[in-house]
């Protein structure tokens, strides 16, 4: 569904930040990007979304190269949630309604409003639709940004640390919701995370990045404690508990 082929990205001085990366994400799959700070995870998400133009390479969504599409078309294919989000001075409902921007013509229709209303109910935000988003907690704002990406109706979600401001329950809720929506609608998601346990709990595949290179990619079973220890510089062990892999630093 998503095919990234030979992507290379550099900032102004010519030094490559991402070096010739290639990978794919299938329908109904969640790919989690892991790696230490500065590995290039956010840069990779931004270049998939063409926010950052890659020096070379191709990003295909269902066999169409998104790097050659206009921005409004890309927004219909890829729903992006940035790591840092600004709360404007608007109601929660209006903030989520913005996600319909790629689909709205001159004005929003009843269908747009209904989709926002349903998404807010699904994400447990139905009771606070009229609250001003600059009065929300960091976690609630994060949920609003994810809700905005949902109503965008993309084929692929690109989520940059979507659980970074959430407590454990909300982290689980959000990741369950993302997983359910991806599976039920045969979509795909690429998510960057720092929490290894949650990554292994919710990912179908893992892509491990370090210094702009792919160190390992594949199913969660293919990632070994040795590779993680090497990349993060911390000894870790993996244990299986009730069918789930847990990562413990030692």
């Amino acid at each position, binding site marked *: 569904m998503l095919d990234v082929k030979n992507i290379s990205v550099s900032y102004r001085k010519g030094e490559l930040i991402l070096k010739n990366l290639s990978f794919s994400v299938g329908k109904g799959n969640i790919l989690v990007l892991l790696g230490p700070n500065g590995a290039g995870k956010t840069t990779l998400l931004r270049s998939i979304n063409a926010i950052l133009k890659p020096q070379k390479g191709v990003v295909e969504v269902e066999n169409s190269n998104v790097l050659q599409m206009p*921005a409004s078309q890309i927004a219909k294919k890829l729903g*992006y949630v940035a790591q840092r*989000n600004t709360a404007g001075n608007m109601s929660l409902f209006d903030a989520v309604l913005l996600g319909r921007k790629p689909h709205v013509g001159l004005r929003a229709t009843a269908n747009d409003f209904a989709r926002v209303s349903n998404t807010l109910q699904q994400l447990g935000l139905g009771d606070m639709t009229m609250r001003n988003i600059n009065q929300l907690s960091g976690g609630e704002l994060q949920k609003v940004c994810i809700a905005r990406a949902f109503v965008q109706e993309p084929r692929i979600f690109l989520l940059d640390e979507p659980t970074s401001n959430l407590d454990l329950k909300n982290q689980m809720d959000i990741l369950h919701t993302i997983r359910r929506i991806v599976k039920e609608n045969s979509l795909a998601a690429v998510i960057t995370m720092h929490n290894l346990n949650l990554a292994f709990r919710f990912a179908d595949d893992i892509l491990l990045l370090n210094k702009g290179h792919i160190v390992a990619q594949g199913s969660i079973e293919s990632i070994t404690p040795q590779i993680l220890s090497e990349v993060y510089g911390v000894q870790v062990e993996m244990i299986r508990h009730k069918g789930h892999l847990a990562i413990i630093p030692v």
Partner: protein
Amino acid sequence: MMHRGNRQKCRNTPFPEYVKYIHRKRLFLVSLIVICLISFFASISLGAVTIPFNSVLRSLFGFGDMPQFQNIITNIRLPNALAALIAGGGLAISGAVMQSVLRNPLGSPFTLGISQAGAFGAAVAIMFMGAGVMQSTQVGAVTVLNPLITIGFAFLMCMVSAIIIILIARFHSTGPEVMVLCGVALGSVFSAGTMFLQYFADDVQLAAIVFWSFGDVGRAGWPEVIIMAVAVVSGTLFFILNRWNYNAIETGDETARGLGVRVDLVRILGMIVASLITATIVSFLGIIAFVGLISPHMVRRFIGDDYRFVIPASFLCGSALLMVSDIAARLMLKPHVLPVAVLTSFIGGPLFIYLLLSKRVK
């Protein structure tokens, strides 16, 4: 009271609170339209000669029976009222859009030095390019003979100022206060340029330039009103078409790009159109301070940062503010008429300080 149809709509919709919330904003717009209409008719009625409201209405609808009133209304009061309506609205939407695209609550044509740049450009065109003539009389001290050259020069200088502001905003993550201080610095440079012209002007020219530099809606005749209306109406339509883009920018550049907004293009086009509106108004009326800054802030207090409503509401608020200020300027020292810019600065200065100190600016 909510209309029966609206009540029904609220009951049937899965988001009744949102429908009510939108109705409240629409009600706010309707209130502003009513205030504007009252101000407009008052602006035609009040002045050195008071014209009764019924005579105003009769004249406007072509049933005027008193030639002296008809003459005053057609040649003086109506163009003045329309100039205030258009210029106030134009400056206010320019301010609202500048605040959005620069993500700076203190953005406005005056605080960013764009009005001063426009005035300098227009003064150059009038003095050296033969775009206008000057007399020492108080009424019509400067007559713009070639509006295209005047607006062109004013626009060029406005763009110089706007581009410097865009570059500062783009390459330095400066806070609102720093950007406004840069605007003050740019304003000083262009004001110094105007002073330089004044220094080399003869007595008649000097008197004319000084008088002309006071912003005043009273000097607008029908040709000026029509040209301003074309610029402001086109600009307003452009801004309304971009309202979703401005809303997206409110959530941050990265998120806006993710929503398909070409942020840099929206930002640059927004500044160009706002500068063109400012240049047109400044060329004909001089510098009118603070309307562009205060009006968007006043409406944001009631309806938030939703540009679907901020743009029309700012327009109406700016229009009403300038019309009311113009009426006050006419009546305060009756039969003398103060330039309206004196009053807007009197009101705007303290409000500006309040905004600087208030929480919203931080």
